[in-house]
């Protein structure tokens, strides 16, 4: 497949590893922010072929993992209302809320449907005018414009039965929080390629300018990741700090202005609640006035206060402060078939990834 297979070439991969080994002289810790990078790194076994002194730590870029328990509980409470159809991306099905999950509720007969695109939620709302269709709007800036389009269309077509449970997040403010907290040593950032397709390079400049760390916007094929790592190492060795683009075939400095405009029409920045990281200013969105009627948080729903397992370490794992191996529940109680926290559910979750290795 074009633009995929060429970036999986074995010989080039081997030569990149070789270069990385020759170029790097320090022991360094690089954070890969994006969950899709975590998956790709795991899928190709990249950790195992990098030299030992280059450590990759996973950041909080797994939107499934950082969705607060309370939002899942709300989705579950909504699904229990007769007239509600819940529509969601597949990623959210198995995430445990305080006492249940969407998958379990579906087994109890609730109308919960997996969709591949926000536009399908629109379609379902049109097909069921008698129902209230709720779409779980979870994701980062890659997905936000697609949600904005669905909202704009719903408004245009005067659809009154489509609602959104807004749990979207913005990546750059979370990076600020991580860098400010200083709890984890990060020598460089592997930045999310597809988020950057939308937002471009500007939102990341503070990483280099204020915090003096190199950052490379990287694609997801193995050669992209290896080249991105090499570019970071080069900066570190040359004592530079800049935001560079490895993923040039789809990331431009200005991002995607059309997409950014759509987000801007519908949303404004707001504080975001991140599981494990708490409240981070500007890291979420809220609806602009004309679209507030689609916010499902206006519904009258009884939701019990969220509970988290006291021993669950997902929060610290998400920040790269602790490893799953330090969690008392890891493997003994918490495993893919019985996940206690989201880091074990999501295929991008650090705990899930570790479970496979240890």
């Amino acid at each position, binding site marked *: 497949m074009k633009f995929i297979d060429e970036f999986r070439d074995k010989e080039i991969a081997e030569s990149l590893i070789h*270069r990385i080994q020759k170029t790097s002289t320090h022991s360094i810790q690089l954070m890969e922010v994006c969950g899709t990078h975590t998956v790709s790194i795991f899928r190709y076994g990249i950790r195992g072929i990098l030299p030992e002194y280059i450590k990759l730590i996973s950041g909080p*870029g797994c939107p499934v993992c950082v969705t607060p328990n309370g939002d899942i509980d709300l989705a579950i409470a909504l699904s229990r209302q007769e007239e509600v159809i819940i529509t969601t991306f597949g990623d959210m099905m198995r995430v445990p809320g305080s006492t249940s999950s969407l998958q379990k509720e579906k087994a109890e007969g609730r109308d919960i449907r997996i969709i591949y695109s926000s536009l399908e939620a629109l379609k379902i709302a049109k097909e069921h005018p008698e129902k209230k269709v709720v779409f779980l709007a979870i994701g*980062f800036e890659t997905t936000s414009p697609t949600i904005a389009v669905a909202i704009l269309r719903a408004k245009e077509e005067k659809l009154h039965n489509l609602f959104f449970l807004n749990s979207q997040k913005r990546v750059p403010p979370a990076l600020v929080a991580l860098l400010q907290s200083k709890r984890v040593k990060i020598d460089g950032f592997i930045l999310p390629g597809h988020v950057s*397709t939308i937002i471009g390079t500007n939102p990341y400049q503070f990483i280099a300018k204020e915090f003096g760390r190199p950052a490379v916007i990287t694609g997801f094929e193995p050669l992209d990741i290896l080249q991105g790592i090499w570019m970071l190492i080069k900066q570190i060795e040359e004592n530079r700090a800049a935001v560079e683009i490895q993923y*040039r075939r789809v990331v431009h400095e200005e991002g995607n202005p059309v*997409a950014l405009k759509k987000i801007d029409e519908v949303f404004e920045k707001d504080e975001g609640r991140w599981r494990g990281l708490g409240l981070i200013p500007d890291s979420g969105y809220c609806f602009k006035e004309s679209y507030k009627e689609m916010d499902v948080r206006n519904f009258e729903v009884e939701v019990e206060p969220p509970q988290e397992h006291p021993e669950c370490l997902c929060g610290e794992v998400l920040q790269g402060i602790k490893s799953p191996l330090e969690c008392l529940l890891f493997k003994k109680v918490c495993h893919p078939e019985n996940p206690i926290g989201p880091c074990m559910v999501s295929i991008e979750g650090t705990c899930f990834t570790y479970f496979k290795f240890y």
Partner: protein
Amino acid sequence: MCLGVPGKVIEIEKNVAKVEVGGFLRDISLDLCPDVSIGEYVLIHTGFAIQKVDEKEAEETLDLLKKMAEAV
């Protein structure tokens, strides 16, 4: 985040393109990427084209990687 896959634009009708990925055909919204022609490649995420794939940049990246491989 997030899953994005390059696909080839086969047909366009208003703001929807028929895009092909390995022989699999999908209707993809061009709302976020309106300036696209048949034969070009787009990056697909949740049923939307979110950016055109710049073939020249892709070639340049690969060329650079191949040169690096030869030099090692």
